[in-house]
């Protein structure tokens, strides 16, 4: 059976070049980068190189990269660390209603500890209106955190406009760029951000490693305390192999950005058009243009997401859904709720995110299987078939 992996926004496979380099590194480089001796210096050299590679991907300086234990940890450090460093200036934070749980729950944690949080609404495409941000700013606002692009529906937020408003008021601006880095150009200076989150495993690097870009001069309190690694911002002996792999993944992402971008968009359009042509009663969610190149997100009327995922999985296709039934919390997606989708379409949502290993034959296969899956589930859906008695 053909296997088609379409969950690259969830995680990506390790790039073969990354794998080779990690193996080479781990074979005999075991030193602690903090050590003075040759073993430590050798490890530090590798970590420094990775730091440069990650910095280069986003147009930053090497000194501005803090390695963390992943994207979630980088979000926590940015938000909780900024709040702790600035609490004397104010206690108000602004975010959006469609952030990743790493951001939303960091904000919730602060809300339990004396901070006030404003959740900006989004329009039907998932876009934050910069004017809404301006209206939400108070004298005590210390941080704005809005994602670069949404992980579910792929909408790219107008970060340049949003960050320039925050700058007018001397408010720190953080963006979670986990979904965009390596997929569209991400430049911290163009974006005008003070803090930016990256994750290795979303760009064909290993899991358990991420980074926070912290603009020179921005002050944060650490969240993890200990030996003072990463310029005191993230204590704990470095995950050297992970960092080395992350660096290589960032280098490859930068190298292949243009070609992968074009290739992925072509595949995406083939998939989107194919679905619209073959399946009636569908809704394409997210923004038609301001969109991640690899994101395809549909709602299929009358069918439930988990049933779609199971049926696709039996045919070798891996995707994801915002349906309540497919989540462990049994809650429908907060993102789809925020863009105003009715419950039926939230439960009937399907996200397919493309990546390096997908090709046109994969798309043909999905376009063969998916219409059958939807038709079968609709054939016994009470929503598609009105009560006849």
């Amino acid at each position: 059976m053909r296997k088609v992996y379409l969950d690259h926004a969830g995680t990506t496979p390790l790039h073969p070049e990354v794998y080779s380099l990690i193996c080479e590194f781990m074979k005999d480089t075991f030193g602690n980068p903090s050590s003075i001796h040759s073993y430590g210096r050798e490890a530090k050299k590798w970590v420094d190189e990775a730091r440069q590679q990650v910095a280069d991907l986003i147009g930053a300086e090497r000194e501005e990269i803090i390695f963390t234990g992943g994207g979630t940890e980088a979000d926590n450090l940015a938000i909780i660390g900024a709040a702790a460093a600035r609490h004397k200036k104010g206690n108000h934070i602004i975010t959006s209603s469609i952030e990743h749980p790493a951001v939303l729950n960091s904000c919730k944690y602060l809300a339990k500890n004396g901070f006030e949080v404003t959740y900006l609404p989004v329009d039907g495409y998932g876009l934050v209106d910069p004017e809404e941000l301006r209206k939400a700013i108070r004298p005590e606002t210390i941080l704005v955190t809005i994602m670069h692009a949404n992980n579910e529906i792929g909408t790219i937020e107008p970060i340049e406009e949003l960050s320039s408003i925050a700058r007018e008021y001397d408010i720190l601006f953080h963006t979670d760029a986990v979904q965009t880095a390596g997929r569209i150009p991400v430049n911290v200076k163009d974006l005008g951000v003070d803090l930016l989150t990256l994750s290795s495993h979303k760009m064909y690097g290993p899991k358990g490693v991420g980074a926070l870009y912290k603009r020179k001069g921005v002050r944060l309190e650490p969240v993890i305390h200990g030996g003072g690694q990463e310029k005191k911002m993230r204590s704990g002996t470095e995950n050297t192999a992970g960092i080395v792999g992350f660096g290589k993944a960032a280098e490859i992402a930068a190298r292949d950005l243009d070609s992968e971008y074009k290739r992925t968009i072509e595949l995406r359009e083939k998939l989107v058009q194919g679905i619209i042509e073959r399946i009636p009663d569908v809704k394409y969610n997210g923004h038609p243009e301001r969109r991640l190149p690899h994101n395809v997100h549909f709602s299929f009327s009358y069918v439930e997401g988990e049933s779609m995922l199971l049926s696709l999985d039996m045919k070798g296709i891996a995707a994801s859904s915002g349906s309540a039934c497919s989540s462990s919390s049994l809650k429908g997606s907060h993102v789809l709720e925020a863009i105003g989708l009715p419950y039926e379409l939230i439960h009937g949502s399907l996200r397919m995110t493309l990546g390096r290993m997908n090709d046109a034959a994969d798309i043909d296969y999905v376009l063969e299987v998916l219409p059958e899956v939807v038709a079968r589930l609709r054939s016994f859906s009470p929503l598609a078939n009105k009560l006849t008695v």
Partner: protein
Amino acid sequence: MYNETVMDHFQNPRNVGEITDASGVGEIGNVVCGDILRVYIKVKDDRLDDVKYMTFGCGAAVASGSMMTTLAKGKTIEEAMQLTNKDVAQALGGLPPQKLHCSNLAADALHKAIEDWQQKNGK
């Protein structure tokens, strides 16, 4: 996540569809939580001559509807009223704990269909 029996009933659901001249119809669930199950029964001599169902729901909902119909078919009304959601889940060899509340409502839907028949027939 699901065992083989559940996956079999999901893949090959028994007795799906409508009964156009049903004796009773029952529906349970709502679109907010994401599972809807509709049951049709055909009653002959106080027995469930035929049971069919339609569902909008997850794998557990599809499978429990299917299992319920196979358990209920041929039973007397009295026996069918004794059938519980738990019986259905047990016959499926168990369901993931988080699914027991929301997606395991097939017996309730069956009872609603029977009540509908009882009302229509003054029983």
